[in-house]
């Protein structure tokens, strides 16, 4: 390995970690601001201009607190869980192509890589609930597992549909295929699958459920489970979970951008690719926040019903339809 390659790796590792940290901090700010605006409030205003220093103040507060491990908790798992939550999100960002050239590692199984590591998140949150030795945390852990198993299936079915259309798992190539005007994006590829927008919506719903965002935040349903799996975490232990939630949202939205919205491809051809990528991604992130502050939390059995009785049959139908149309049209 040459020195340059080593240096490049170092820069990307630091870059990805900084990106995750910055996103987590400022998405919290953005979420609080947006939540305020949706309710005709201004949101944080006091710390810095328009409350821009608020996340830093919160971070310092969380860092200065003691990390308490409760009596009878599995100390090692308890401490490892926050790291296990954070790690996969960062790993995923290493293969996400931000632009034509800006990518940590362009591997030819990028798609599988992201969804494989994305699933570790579920296990880590479950571990945190298990290790806490707290009844609310246990209930939350059980909910997380059943919820994420339920939503993993339609999500992966949608991804398989996409995979049949693109024919490659290389994220770079997937974006390359969508070059040109916006009707080349996978979202509008109605020639292979007239239900493509529906597919995108299914992906988006599953992403919300996988990242435990409202209206699917059964894992930390405050009104029922205190803070769910994170009940026993103090200080930065809790802070890391909080950051990981936003990091996962960023990963999910990045994947949606890459798979459906043409990644760094611009619809008109102005501005460099990375700007377009971030624009599309943050538009999706805004939608995630928007959904959270619009819909109330669902009941748990309704959540499972939605997945097993609607999303899975529909995504299976889409899969079969796509397969049939590809066989017919491209024979």
């Amino acid at each position, binding site marked *: 390995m040459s020195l340059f390659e080593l240096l490049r790796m170092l820069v990307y590792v630091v870059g990805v970690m900084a990106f995750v940290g910055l996103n987590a901090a400022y998405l919290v700010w953005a979420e609080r601001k947006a939540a305020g605006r949706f309710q005709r409030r201004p949101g944080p*205003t006091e710390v810095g201009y328009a409350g821009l220093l608020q996340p830093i103040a919160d971070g310092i507060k969380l860092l200065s607190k003691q990390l308490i491990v409760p009596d009878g908790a599995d100390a090692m798992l308890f401490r490892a869980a926050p790291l296990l939550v954070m790690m996969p999100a960062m790993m995923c960002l290493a293969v996400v192509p931000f632009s034509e050239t800006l990518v940590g590692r362009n591997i030819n199984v990028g798609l599988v890589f992201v969804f494989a590591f994305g699933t570790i998140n579920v296990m880590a949150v479950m571990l945190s609930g298990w290790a806490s030795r707290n009844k609310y945390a246990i209930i939350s852990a059980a909910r997380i597992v059943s919820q994420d198993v339920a939503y993993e299936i339609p999500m992966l079915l949608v991804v398989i549909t996409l995979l049949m259309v693109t024919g490659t798992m290389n994220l770079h190539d997937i974006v390359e295929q969508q070059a040109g005007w916006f009707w080349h994006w996978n979202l509008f590829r109605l020639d292979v699958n007239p239900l493509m927008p529906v597919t995108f919506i299914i992906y988006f719903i599953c992403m919300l459920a996988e990242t435990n965002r409202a209206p699917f935040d059964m894992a930390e349903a405050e009104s029922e489970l205190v803070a769910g799996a994170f009940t026993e975490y103090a200080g930065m232990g809790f802070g890391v979970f909080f950051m990981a939630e936003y990091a996962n949202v960023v990963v999910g939205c990045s994947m949606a951008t890459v798979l459906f919205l043409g990644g760094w491809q611009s619809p008109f051809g102005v501005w460099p690719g990375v700007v377009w990528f971030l624009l599309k991604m943050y538009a999706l992130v805004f939608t995630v926040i928007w959904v959270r502050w619009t819909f109330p939390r669902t009941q748990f059995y309704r959540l499972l019903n939605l997945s097993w009785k*609607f999303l899975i049959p529909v995504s299976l139908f889409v899969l079969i339809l796509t397969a049939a149309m590809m066989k017919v049209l491209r024979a």
Partner: protein
Amino acid sequence: MRKFLKEMGGGFYSLVLGMRITLEQFFKPTVTVHYPHESLKMAPRFRGHIELVRDPKTGKAICFACKVCEKACPSDCILVEGAKKEGEKRKSVTEFKLDFTKCSLCGSCVEACKSNALQFSREYNLASTRKEDFIMDLFKRLEAERVAAEPQPAASTPAEQPKPKPEPAAAQPKTEAP
């Protein structure tokens, strides 16, 4: 199957409708009052702690220490002392202690006062870290206000008229009530 699709379509439409409504709210101006920097004007019938009413003619308290309010108070938080000064027809108040830590703002004292010498103030920024701040002498307060208001317009009383904080007579709850 048709029913299923109809239900799904209807459900999705209602979700989109909900999102449209929240987005409309998103772009409307905020309605928050930034409290420490700005505050709302209290309504004229706001019931803060009681205060003595000033006689608009003399600028002094109307109260002549009849102690009816002291007797009317169910929580025993008022203590009135008065003295008859030389050359005056009736007594005048010299001390009006209100223990606000005990007061429940029932207003019995204001109701009991036959000469309308008591009223509710509109003050609500009453937070303090010391208990002593809530045991206040309303007479001393009134006098301090009067002294503070006096020096500027030398002797002319009409100029002084609008100075006192509670607008005379008109602001009294009793006369205002329909």
